[in-house]
């Protein structure tokens, strides 16, 4: 078996080692999506439309965003800082395996697992909340797939950047917590970003956060103009480039400073 496929396989096996843990992890995810959809259903009980969205559009938005976030923002690299700081990274560094490729495989295993369960849970939520199915233009569908991969790449680079803190400090919880606060607010999980005041909405588009699910959902709901799609493509590419270069730089410096702590 190819070394990277073997890594993918063992990551899955490891993830399924404890049944109760798997069950509780998915129950938490299901509950989060269920709460979001319930809140918006209640908010729309007395009105057909508000914030520029009809009830069915809003439910569809929350529904699609939930699935996309299961793929885009989930990461298996949350413990990377301590892996580096404790010196556990050494076990990977001495093997004939590409470091970033190995991390990418772990991420792929985690996202595939998330997507599989998210699709199963979505079937259940679909029957409860009955989101409206919109016809999507094929070109929009294709672009949204590219943007999903773009969002995955951004999350990957950001996770590696947070992980790189481990070369110098044991603690990355502060910046990581700040990042997840921004994701919750600006990633579009709980509400679409275009309900924010126009200036804030424009500023948010300058950050990488809309590409972590909001932009893709808007595209699938046919709510982006051609100009916005083009500028979205440019913005996404720019963020991938910037974060990629930053990751490369910090890891190169970090590996030179790596202390391989412990015995």
């Amino acid at each position, binding site marked *: 078996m190819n070394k990277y496929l073997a890594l993918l396989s063992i990551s899955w096996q490891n993830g399924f*080692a404890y049944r109760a843990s798997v069950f509780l992890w998915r129950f938490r995810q299901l509950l989060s999506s269920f709460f979001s959809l319930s809140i918006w259903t209640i908010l729309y009980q007395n009105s057909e439309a508000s914030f520029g969205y009809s009830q069915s559009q809003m439910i569809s938005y929350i529904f699609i965003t939930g699935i996309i976030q299961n793929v885009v923002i989930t990461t298996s690299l949350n413990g990377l800082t301590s892996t580096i700081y404790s010196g556990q990274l050494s076990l990977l*560094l001495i093997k004939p395996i590409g470091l970033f490729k190995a991390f990418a495989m772990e991420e792929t295993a985690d996202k595939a697992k998330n997507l599989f369960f998210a699709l199963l849970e979505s079937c259940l939520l679909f029957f409860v909340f009955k989101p409206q199915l919109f016809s999507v233009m094929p070109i929009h569908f294709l672009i949204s797939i590219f943007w999903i991969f773009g969002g995955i790449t951004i999350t990957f680079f950001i996770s590696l950047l947070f992980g790189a803190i481990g070369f110098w400090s044991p603690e990355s919880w502060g910046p990581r917590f700040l990042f997840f606060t921004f994701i919750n607010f600006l990633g579009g999980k709980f509400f679409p970003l275009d309900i924010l005041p126009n200036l804030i909405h424009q500023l948010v588009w300058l950050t990488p956060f809309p590409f972590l699910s909001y932009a893709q959902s808007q595209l699938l709901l046919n709510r982006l103009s051609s100009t916005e799609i083009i500028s979205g493509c440019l913005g996404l590419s720019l963020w991938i480039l910037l974060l990629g270069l930053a990751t490369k730089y910090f890891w190169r410096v970090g590996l030179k400073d790596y202390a391989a702590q412990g015995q």
Partner: protein
Amino acid sequence: MSEEPIISVNHLSKHFKVYQKQPGLMGSIVSLWSRSYETIHAVEDISFTIHAGEIVGFIGQNGAGKTTTLKMLSGLLFPSSGSVDVLGFNPWDRKPAYQKQFSLVMGQKNQLWWDLPAMETFLLNQAIYEIPNLEFKQTLNQLIELLDVSSVVNVQVRKLSLGQRMKCELIAALLHKPKVLFLDEPTIGLDVVMQKTLRDFIKEYNQQFNATIILTSHYMGDVKELCKRTIIIDKGKKVFDGALQDIIDKYARNKILSLVFSKPITRKELARFGTITEFSEDGTNDTATIVVPRKESTKIAASIMTKFPVQDVTIEEPPIDAIIREVFKDQNRASQHHEQS
């Protein structure tokens, strides 16, 4: 032994900058904006060469620089200065062609996947090191048999004993038949029986595959039994490189006489011949252990035999641990003298 060394280390140094915290709460508060750092010379200007098939013992106190040296040889740490060549590679380049030829086993770091059976790690390593199926099966069966772990390789790693886990760690590290093996405290925490099993295995592996091995250990038994050559490091510097017997000859000032007497004797009479470390009177066979100057040990043993009713006598070297302590004491004395002058 081939003529070209397999490992060449030239003037290798590694310095770390470490933060010095002032004591107390104020020290913590001040450290938020002002910190002082100290440079630690973990390894300082070390040079040596090692040939194929050698087992070399790396001895030193905690923090002497043994593990740091091994980490530089493995390509984990970037040297501050100097150069390293292992099997024709610069370890820091981390080339797969080099990584496929060496293994680093750290007694306190686990490469086995904790929640899965060891067999899963073996299969993963087969893929990572690109070992053909047939070769993998043969090597695995051979290692499993040598270490007697057939009944545990399919059990979750976290449920294995320390000894079983260490054996499986060794298998995982040796599946690709490395030519160079860096063993960092492989017997740490193991009981004496398990230590012996692992020593025998390391010796067997060295002979069977002509592997070059560098071993660090706090257990002198490991070094004594496995290594003909020893490198002693103290405070980052190499202080001795040679045969273990040479250290004994140079630093062992005494020998130990173990005596069994057929008739009772008095402690006072025996004390004239050396320092008594053990004396037991049971009325029939009194026994004693005395430490005597090394150069006069034979003469003193002969005198004791003529003056006392000796039933049995053995002359032994002092424990290797004690001799190594002498080496470090000697080094300390030398460095203090150097500082004073």
